[in-house]
C-alpha cells in the first residue's frame, strides 16, 4: 500500500484529491478491523504517539486513543489543564521534552489557529492537527467525507450544505476545502454575522434562507452553535437562532428523501438541530463517530506505518 509523502497533517486545504482518496480508501480497510471481534492489529507495535489536548474534547480524543490502541501503538495523553502549560512552559518545550522520550507522532488540539503549523516546524515528529483555533480540523473533514462516501457511494457532484457558524468553525473550513477537492458542490447557510469575511475565497455560495439552501441538497451538516457567540453580539438569542436557522423536520419538509443529516457534535439539541432529526432515519451522526476511528487509524498507518522499520 502507498503511504503519504508528507510529515504532517495540518489541514485539507493543502492536501490533494489523490491524498484524500488514499486516506479514505485506507480508512475502509481500517473499518474492517474495527468490525472484528478482536480489534487489534500489530501494525504500529513499538511506535509511540502523544495526544496533546489544550482544549477539552471527548469524541476526538477517545477516537484517537482507540485508533492508537487498535493499531498497537503506545500512546500517552496529556490534557492542557493537567500539563505543564499551566506552569508556564511553552508549547515548543513541552513537545520537545516528550519527543526525546521517543514520541514519533503528536496529535494536538489547540485553541490558537496556526499552532499546528508552529509545532510542525519545531519538532521532528509528525504532527496531526486535531483542531487548531478557527483554522482547520482535518480529521473531522476526512471522517465527514468518509461518512458521505459510504452512504452515497460518491462525493462528486453531491450538493452539501453546511449550516451555522461558519465564521468560527474549523470543521467548516476543513469540509469546505476537502469536499470541493473531491468534486462536491458546497454551500453555506446562516446569518451573515456568522460567515467569514470575504467568503468568496472558499468558492461557495451563501444562503441566508435555510429552506432555499437545502431545497435540492444531498447532505446537510449542522454546526454547533457556541453560546459565547451570542454574548459577543453575533446573534440576539439562542431562541431566535433556533427559530430562524435551526434544522427541524418542518424546515426540511421539502427536501430529498435520501438527504443525509450530519453534525460533528456535541449537539445543542433543539438549537441547531432538533432531536427528531438527530435521532431520525436520515441522520448519519453515529456513522460519523464510527468513521472517526477508522480515519484516524488510517492516518496513523499512513504517517507511521512501515516508514522507519
Amino acid at each position, binding site marked *: 500500500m502507498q503511504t503519504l509523502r508528507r510529515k504532517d497533517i495540518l489541514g485539507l*486545504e493543502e492536501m490533494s484529491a489523490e491524498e484524500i482518496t488514499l486516506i479514505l480508501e485506507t480508512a475502509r480497510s481500517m473499518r474492517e478491523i474495527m468490525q472484528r471481534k478482536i480489534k487489534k492489529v500489530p501494525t504500529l507495535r513499538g511506535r509511540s504517539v502523544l495526544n496533546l489536548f489544550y482544549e477539552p474534547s471527548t469524541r476526538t480524543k477517545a477516537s484517537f486513543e482507540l485508533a492508537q490502541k487498535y493499531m498497537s501503538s503506545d500512546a500517552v495523553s496529556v490534557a492542557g489543564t493537567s500539563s505543564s502549560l499551566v506552569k508556564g512552559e*511553552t*508549547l*515548543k518545550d513541552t513537545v520537545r521534552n516528550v519527543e526525546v522520550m521517543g514520541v514519533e507522532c503528536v496529535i494536538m488540539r*489547540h*485553541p*490558537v*489557529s*496556526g*499552532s499546528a*503549523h*508552529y509545532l510542525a*516546524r519545531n519538532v521532528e515528529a509528525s504532527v496531526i492537527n486535531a483542531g*487548531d*483555533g*478557527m*483554522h*482547520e480540523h482535518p480529521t473531522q473533514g476526512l471522517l465527514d467525507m468518509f461518512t458521505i462516501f459510504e452512504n452515497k457511494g460518491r462525493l462528486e457532484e453531491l450538493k452539501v450544505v453546511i449550516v451555522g457558524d461558519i465564521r468560527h468553525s*474549523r470543521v467548516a*473550513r476543513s469540509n469546505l476545502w476537502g469536499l470541493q477537492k473531491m468534486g462536491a458542490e458546497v454551500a453555506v447557510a446562516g446569518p451573515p454575522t456568522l460567515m*467569514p*469575511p*470575504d*467568503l*468568496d*475565497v*472558499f468558492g461557495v455560495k451563501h444562503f441566508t434562507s435555510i429552506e432555499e439552501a437545502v431545497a435540492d441538497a444531498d447532505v446537510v451538516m449542522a454546526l454547533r452553535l457556541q453560546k459565547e457567540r451570542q454574548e459577543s453580539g453575533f446573534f440576539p438569542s439562542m431562541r431566535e437562532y433556533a427559530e430562524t436557522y435551526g434544522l427541524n423536520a418542518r424546515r426540511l419538509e421539502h427536501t430529498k428523501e435520501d438527504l443525509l443529516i450530519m453534525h460533528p457534535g456535541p449537539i445543542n439539541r433543539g438549537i441547531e438541530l432538533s432531536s427528531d432529526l438527530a435521532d431520525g432515519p436520515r441522520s448519519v451522526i453515529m456513522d460519523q463517530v464510527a468513521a472517526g476511528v477508522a480515519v484516524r487509524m488510517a492516518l496513523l498507518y499512513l504517517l507511521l506505518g512501515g516508514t522507519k522499520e
Partner: protein
Amino acid sequence: MKTLYITGGRVIDPSRNYDQTADLLIEDGIIKKVEKGMKPPSDGEVIDADGLVVTPGLVDMHVHLRDPGQEYKEDINSGTRAAAAGGFTSVAAMPNTDPVTDDPSMIRYAFDKAANTPARVYPMGAVTRGQEGKELAELGRMKKAGAVAFSDDGKPVVDGMMMRNALQYAMGLDALVIVHEEDPALAARGMMHEGTVSSVLGLKGIPSAAEEAMLSRDLLILKITGGKMHVAHVSTAGSVEMLRRAKKEGLNVTAEVTPHHLLLTDRMVKNSGYSTNTKVNPPLRAERDRQALWEGLLDGTIDAIASDHAPHHPDDKDMEYDFAPFGIAGLETTLPLMLDEVNSERVKEFTLPVLVDRLSTGPARILQLDSGTLKEGSTADLTILDLNRSYIVDPDSWHSKSRNTPFAGRRLLGAPVYTIVGGRVTMKEGVLTE
C-alpha cells in the same frame, strides 16, 4: 578645529532640491561648504565618496527603544547602535516605556542616556498620563524638557473629547500630536488584516475600517481645533484617500508609512505558515492597500517613511500566533529595503531624491529638527550610502537585541556606508566606530 572633508559624492539635499556631484567641508560638526571641486583642506579626515551618495542624516521618526522597562528587548544603547548601523543619525522614541514616558524627568532620562550614543535620540512624551486616555499628561513641561512630539502610540486615544483637548492644548505649545489610529472595538482583538487570508487561516481580522473610522474622527476633530497632527503607520487605501482630501482642504496633517506596509501584504502570513514575524499592528494589509500607500508616498500625501521599529526578544515571538506580541524590528532593514526598491525600479517614480526626502527631510520637517538638510551652517548629520552594495538581511548580525523581521534572508541592493552625527563618524562600512 576638527575638519571632515567628503569628496566626490553625489550630494542629494531635498531641502533645496540639490542633486549633483560635490564636496562637503565640515568643521566642528557644522556643514561649512557644499561645492563642486572644492580645494581639499590641508589637514583633517577625508572620506572619498566617489561612487557614493551623500545625504542629510536619516531620521526614523517612529521607533520603540523599550527603555526603561523592557531592556531585555532593546535599550537606548542597542537601539541607537542599530540606528547608526542602519544609516540613521536620529530616532524619535515612542513613550510607551515602562513606566510610560509621561513626565519631564523621563524625557531627561532619555536625553541623558543618549548623550554619547551613535545616533541622536529625540524622546516623545505621552499624550495622556500613563497612556491611559483619561488625563492629559504635562505636555508643556515635557516640551520644555525637550519632547519633540506627543503620542499614545501603541493605542489610540479612544475618548473623542480627550483627543479634542489634546490637539487644542498642544496647539498652544506649537506641539505635534502623533496619532495611532485604531478603533479598539472594531479591531476586536484581531490578529491580522481582515480579508480573504484571515478567513482562510482562521485568524481574527482587524478590518481596515478600524483604522479609517478613527482617522476620520480625528480629522474631523482637527478641523474644529486647529493644531497639527501626524498620523503614524498609515496602512489602508481608505486612510490614504482621507489624508489626501484633508491635505487638499488645508488641514495641518502629516503622515508616515512603514517599509513593511509598502512591501508586504497579508498573504505573507499564510506563505510563512503563520510566522509570528508577520504579526504587526496595524496589520499587513491587502495588495490594493499596498498600492495605495505607494501612490500616497509618491504624491506627497505621505510625508515620511518610518520603521515603527518594534523590537521583541526572540523568545517572545517564538510562540503560537495569538500569544506572540505585535511588532516588526526595522532600524537595520529600512534603508536597505528602500534602496533596493529604488534600484529595482519596481515603482518608477521612487527615485533616490524621493527616498531621501521621505527618510530625512520629511521627518525632520515634521519634528522641526535641526537636520534633514545639507545647507551650509546646519548641523553635520549625514548619511553616506552605496547604491551598489549588496546587503543580506541577517538578524543574527544585528546590533539590535531583537530578531523579529519578516524580511530575514532577503538579498538587497543598496546599503549605508557611513553614518555621521554632528561631524563625528559613528558607523563606517557597517562597523560602529565606538
